[in-house]
């Protein structure tokens, strides 16, 4: 990394320290809680899968059965009941899943011998986490084998047809055109479902359902292209919304490589309860960390609703918080794909310089992180020609500041989800520019007292001020008072609050335990 902005190291350290202090009390709260989706994610890791005739997934059925028997039982964790049923029925997980889907109630069996359950559970932990470890090893092997074949930054393209089979066609074409990362955009509003749909799906609006089967189908398709193109093609989805940890688990099992995952996005932009979100994000991140999955945080969202110039500091503040929550969940810097976005009003004089300043600032403050840079969206219009040029400036800034993950802008951003040709045009644009300015990053310097340097210093200062304010009142209260993204979220309001679980003294979750141990979480 080249230092160009001369940001004072002590100020950066101080900002980081503030973020750590803000996150700490939240961490204590998290450790005392679980949630319905954390329990379901645990079940999934253990092998619970399938759905009943109404489409209610087996993990939901199990949690609902426990809750129906006695809500207080949730505090012990739900996995114990599933393991108990496995032992008592002598069935395989698959057989048991089928039986549950057909109506069998795990609570109909009395709880058996604790040590037998623990032993069985350890077996499943070894199996579940073993599979994830294998996935990770496979990915590492392929990355090693096709080392140096990916673009720098990684070119990230979305598919969003709503139909997994159509998505596959688009994704393969995109990968062949040069994409390194394919993100299957999720259907509108899936984030608010408190379950994960089951099976292959062909009906979605503005995106495709995130289901384990869909993950599998796309993974297989991309593995095919990986071999053809001799370039490991990464797959991305959303460990976000009310089922954050479950999707993380599914992604870990199906070898996804990246996940959209943010510690506060759900609270601020989806009105999901804050306690629930903080609990869920930690478990989901532990899974991601273990699976070697890079998370992509959602700072770009701050800028779609507020001004990118005025509110640049909210991005940096959020990055610092996401980093701390990431560290707390065992994610190393190299899996922290912190987000930011090129969303400045294109009519601003010197807007390019400010974008350059902010992107370079992120680069210098997060030197090892595979920063994820989002393209212009808000100021894209029906003028596709203007839009294409804006995208070219975005491509420029990204390469010129050595970003890690580059989400390609679409000239039709304001019109429709991408057509196949839109993606081609986008890749072509990026490849041309990035090759054409290959060593620009190393070749240019910023004037010491110039606009770019001053802008970065200013944003850092504002961020520190903001974090000081948050630190003073505490994160929960800060969110409640609307300090983030101009929205106020009451502590006990929002979706999914009822799914929060206070862990009891007997809380049983060997998956969590094992993850913490292997990830070296205190």
């Amino acid at each position, binding site marked *: 990394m080249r230092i160009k902005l001369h940001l004072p190291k002590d100020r950066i350290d101080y900002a980081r320290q503030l973020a750590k202090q803000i996150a700490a009390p939240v961490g204590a709260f998290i450790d005392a809680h679980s949630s319905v989706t954390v329990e379901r994610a645990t079940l999934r890791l253990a092998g619970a899968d399938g759905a009943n005739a109404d489409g209610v997934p087996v993990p939901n059925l199990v949690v609902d059965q426990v809750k129906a028997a006695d809500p207080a039982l949730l505090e012990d964790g739900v996995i114990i009941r599933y393991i108990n049923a496995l032992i008592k029925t002598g069935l395989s997980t698959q057989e048991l899943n089928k039986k549950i889907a057909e109506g069998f109630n795990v609570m109909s069996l009395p709880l058996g011998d604790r040590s037998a359950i623990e032993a069985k559970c350890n077996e499943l932990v070894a199996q579940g986490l073993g599979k994830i470890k294998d996935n990770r090893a496979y990915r590492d092997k392929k990355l090693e084998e096709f080392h140096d074949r990916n673009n720098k930054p990684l070119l990230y393209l979305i598919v*969003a047809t*709503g139909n997994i089979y159509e998505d596959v*066609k688009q994704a*393969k*074409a995109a990968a*062949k*055109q040069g994409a390194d990362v394919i993100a299957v955009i999720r259907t*509108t*509003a899936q984030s*608010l479902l408190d379950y994960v749909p089951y099976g292959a799906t062909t*009906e979605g*609006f*503005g995106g495709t359902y995130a289901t384990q089967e869909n993950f599998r189908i796309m993974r297989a398709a991309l593995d095919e292209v990986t071999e053809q193109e001799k370039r490991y093609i990464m797959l991305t989805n959303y460990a976000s919304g009310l089922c954050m940890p479950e999707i993380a688990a599914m992604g870990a099992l199906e070898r996804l490589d990246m996940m959209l995952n943010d510690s506060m996005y759900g609270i601020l932009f*989806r009105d999901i309860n804050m306690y629930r979100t903080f609990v869920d994000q930690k478990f989901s991140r532990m899974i991601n960390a273990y699976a070697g999955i890079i998370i992509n945080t959602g700072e770009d969202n701050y800028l*779609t*609703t507020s001004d990118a110039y005025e509110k640049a500091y909210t991005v940096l503040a959020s990055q610092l918080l996401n980093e701390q929550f990431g560290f707390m969940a065992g994610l190393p810097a190299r899996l922290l794909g912190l987000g930011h976005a090129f969303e400045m009003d294109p009519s601003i004089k010197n807007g390019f310089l400010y974008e350059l300043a902010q992107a370079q600032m992120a680069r210098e403050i997060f030197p090892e992180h595979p920063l994820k840079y989002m393209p212009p969206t808000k100021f894209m*219009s*029906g003028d596709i020609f203007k839009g294409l040029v804006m995208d070219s400036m975005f491509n420029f800034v990204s390469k010129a500041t050595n970003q890690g993950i580059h989400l390609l802008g679409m000239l039709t951003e*304001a019109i*429709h*989800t991408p*057509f*196949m*040709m839109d993606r*081609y045009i986008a890749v072509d644009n990026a490849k041309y520019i990035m090759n054409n300015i290959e060593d620009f990053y190393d070749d240019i310097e910023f004037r010491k007292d110039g606009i770019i340097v001053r802008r970065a210093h200013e944003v850092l200062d504002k961020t520190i001020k903001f974090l000081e304010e948050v630190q003073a009142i505490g994160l929960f209260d800060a969110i409640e008072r609307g300090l983030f993204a101009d929205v106020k979220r009451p502590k006990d309001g929002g979706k999914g609050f009822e799914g929060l679980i206070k862990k009891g003294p007997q809380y049983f979750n060997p998956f969590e335990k094992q993850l913490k141990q292997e990830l070296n979480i205190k």
Partner: protein
Amino acid sequence: MKLIRTYGDTLDDGKVQLSFTLPVPDGARGREAARKLVLAWGFKECEVVHSAPLSEEFSFYVVYGKSETAIDFDTVEADEIDKDASMSMDEVNEFIRQHIKRKVVVVGACTGFDAHTVGIDAIMNMKGYNHHYGLERYPEIEAYNLGAQVPNEKLIDFAVKVKADAILVSQVVTQKDTHIHNMTEFIELLEAKNLRDRFICIAGGPRIGNKLAVELGFDAGFGRGTYADDVATFIVKKLVEKAQAS
């Protein structure tokens, strides 16, 4: 009668730029298919100036065509609510004081699964958009913005509760025609409850045309570049019209 044709650099040269994808491999046959297709649309000449493979099965074309098709501009009527005629915020308030003589109640939401609130906020929130204040700032208007992902049912119930004069529906996502389904359901629900006449119904969003909205049973539709002034003007004028009609 004023016949107009597309224009490149000379009147009536009929030039048009097109680009599209075909589900065939790139190559000479693909380019010829592209040309034939463009001619099938009635273009008189067609030059395929670029082709490229998108994958083994798909290819991309850039084409310039020459069309002789003309339309009579004199017969073209704008399919948009005339924004030039919009009153300013102060004029709207004055109009209400003069002609309606009570507060006008407006309820709005982004309906269905749609979570794109920036548009409806631009119309309703205090702050407004591009230096045009939103309806909340109008002293003579009582505005309720229910926000994102509001079910049609809930929106209607609320409108009934606050005795709304007008309901604003925002629809941004149009993939798979979800906006059409949502808007249709909204009107059908109103009709089922026998409430359609109680409200002025207005739809809006970047891909919403006035014609479409009217076809689906709304009183008007507003597309991109709409400001609160435009909507407010329409509402108050329509209210007076309705009052006179009844």
